[in-house]
């Protein structure tokens, strides 16, 4: 099943890699550079799942998830957090902010796709 994915990351390299992994899996990919940009992009699309980095300028991943979750039309969209840490603390923080799951960077494209399937079909 082809998914529509919004990926938010301030690192261009990471965006490129996400784009490559997601497009190769046949997903429709939208990219944003930070939380605020992510919300702007979100206005015009209806993604099946969102992937977001945490530490970003202007609006970080937590702020972004808060904003997404507080909007009714978006509150059910699964959100995967990109993190370099697999620390439990970070996970619980991410979950508290409304994350559905997490992906540890550097990600394995196959696992990324699997994780997406797991949360969004």
């Amino acid at each position, binding site marked *: *099943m082809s998914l529509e994915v919004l990926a938010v990351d*301030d*690192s*261009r*390299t*990471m965006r*490129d*890699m996400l784009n*490559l992994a997601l497009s*190769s*899996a*046949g997903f429709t990919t939208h990219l944003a*550079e930070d*939380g*605020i*940009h992510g*919300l*702007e992009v*979100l206005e015009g699309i209806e993604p099946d799942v969102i992937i977001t980095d945490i*530490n*970003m*300028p*202007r609006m970080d991943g937590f*702020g972004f998830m*808060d*904003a*997404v*979750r*507080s*909007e009714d039309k*978006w*509150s*059910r969209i*699964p*959100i995967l957090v990109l993190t*370099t840490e*697999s620390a439990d603390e970070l996970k*619980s923080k991410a*979950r*508290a*902010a*409304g*994350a*559905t*799951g*997490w992906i*540890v*960077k*550097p*990600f*394995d*494209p*196959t696992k990324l*796709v*699997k994780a997406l*399937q*797991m*949360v*969004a*079909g």
Partner: protein
Amino acid sequence: MSDPMAEIRASFFIECEELLESLQDGLNLMDNGDSDSETINVVFRAVHSIKGGAGAFGLDDLVHFAHRFETAMDEVRAGRFVPDTEAIRVFFSCADLLGDLIRAARDGHVIPPEKTSPILDLLDKLVGCEEEEDEEELEFTPAALSFDLGDTAGLPDIPGLPSLEGVPDLAETDLDSDPKLVAAKGFDITFKPETALYTSGNEPLYLLRALRDLGDLEVECLTSQIPALDALDPDLGHLSWKLRIITEEPIESVREVFEFVDGLCTLDITPLATPVDFSAPDDDGPSIADLPNEFNTPTSPSEVPAPDNSAVSTTEPGEPNKEITKESPKQTTAKETPKPASNKASSAPTQPRATVRVDLERIDRLVNLVGELVINQAMLSQSVTEAGIAPNSPVSTGLEEFLQLTRDIQESVMMIRAQPIKSLFQRMGRIVRESSSSVGKEVRLHTAGENTEVDKTVIERLADPLTHMIRNAVDHGLETPEKREAAGKPREGRVTMTAQHRSGRILIEIADDGAGINRERVREKAIEKGLITAEMQLNDADIDGLLFMPGFSTASEISNLSGRGVGMDVVKSSIQSLGGRITITSVEGEGTTFSISLPLTLAVLDGMVVRVGGETLVVPLNAILETLTLTDDDLKALGPETHVVQIRGGFIPLLDLGAELGYRPPQDSYVGGIVLLIGQEDGNRAALAVDAIEDQRQVVIKGLEGSYGRVPGIAAATILGDGQIALILDPTDLVSQASGKTKKRNLPVQLAG
């Protein structure tokens, strides 16, 4: 199409350079006392992003270093460590080394750990965080992405409400009828989602699907806890599932499926006993004699028990509906609503602008093509004129528009190549740090105008001369802290680098607040070296100019810093090869300033085409103040061999361009001849006698240095409309080396080799 991973890798290194720049900026701000959390965050983020990308490409050395740097910056970010000047100096060194590691990784080199470990140890000691040795194994396989969608493809797409109907579909494999079952391994799973599972965006259906991908899955949905309709809170989960999966996969794979919902559900996974195959019992698994059909195994102690929802009872099945609006506990934490946030964003000045990355070679090709276009246009204009076509004819006016368009295109193309000089300034920051610490001086670099845009090639080719000048300023320009204190100056020396656009050129200044040029010493040295004789009368500017003479070095002993066999003469010729000029001003006790003036672009120039001695030359238009025809009254003899031109009460030396370039001997008379009045940066003027003015046009600059070498008085070459090469004059260089002979033949004396 090339390998996409290789492309991303290449773009990663470009991004790294940008991140290094932000890193430097942030550290500079911190160094200037900025302790704003966003500043620190920028620094942290830069290191973090470099680490992240490096991990993706398996650049272990880089990851390792960045990780420790990041850890330190995290301490700063968390407020556990407040950096002082010394610490920031260490951060700067780390940033420098990080840059080295990045470039090493890019170019496939290795930087030995001996180079990085001292600074890392220093960092650890300073910040007080020990390196955790159990770094995560960072590996990445850029494997081709393939995901078998065959299984899920057949599933009905259930939008909005993934209801119960979807779930039984999963049980395609009838447990009882599958003969494999008898010998199979697998697990019994009880799965009871909590409300939080749904509010976090998880969806049991997808989990079940993922589970099904592991093997044959049998699903039983338990609806007993669904409350009566009137008591039903649709936001709460009321369903639970009993699952049995027949799979060869280990329990970890099953756990992995539930990774995201760990803690958001009651989950129990029990390995199936192997009922038939007695000869092969589960070896390592806890061989609990669980009955295969016993689904109600108690939850393991490690699992969080679910809140008791049994009191609620309803008849309506279903999980929380996506359409239903509700207040989830999460929402109380929301600080910002998306609407105002996005409004803010549209007006935010930091909004990233859309950019395209282009291979520099492509731009250079475009630049060259536009250059050819300009030449072509010139040839066409020439043909049109020669054909005697009237200036107001459609052809001529069309050509006029063509000319305008060509110029616009050229300008636009040049702008693509322009980039802020900032990266260069940042590199100089490192030179200051390294050179000052190696000679034991305290130096601070101040920069201004770092957003001044300069042609990329100019920036690249300025790196070496500027490095040398900065080293010189630190090494020779600034005094030792002790001497500075004795002179009533702050211990810390100051080097200032500025860049600005000024009248169509770029002016770069490097100033120190050191002792200034010791002219007596310079003079002695020059005599010692045989560059001048003791009798020569030299003014201050002449003495300063001696610094640019080949083979001159003021340092009594060659320091290991700037004394690399390269003198200011090389700096000067590098600047000249860029069509630039360098001048010195120095005040004893107050410091020295080097000023570099450069053309905006290396590619084109507005010039006046002149004929002299049978040759065609181009004189840069911005050097020409005016042109005039000499009358007898204008011309005054001065001494036996030279003339001056009297213009509006002032006297200007007359130079015969043909004679100065050695094309022909001086003329018998210059009366009636054409002269170009040349204005120089230092305010001096000169009158250049030429035979004829042919045209005024834009020319494409073709460097001579690459193919032949520097020619005194000549800046570069160009190709004219007729395909012939014409030389482009460097008026300042020509005037500075001019013999000024306008009366009898005398070969011009060459000063520098």
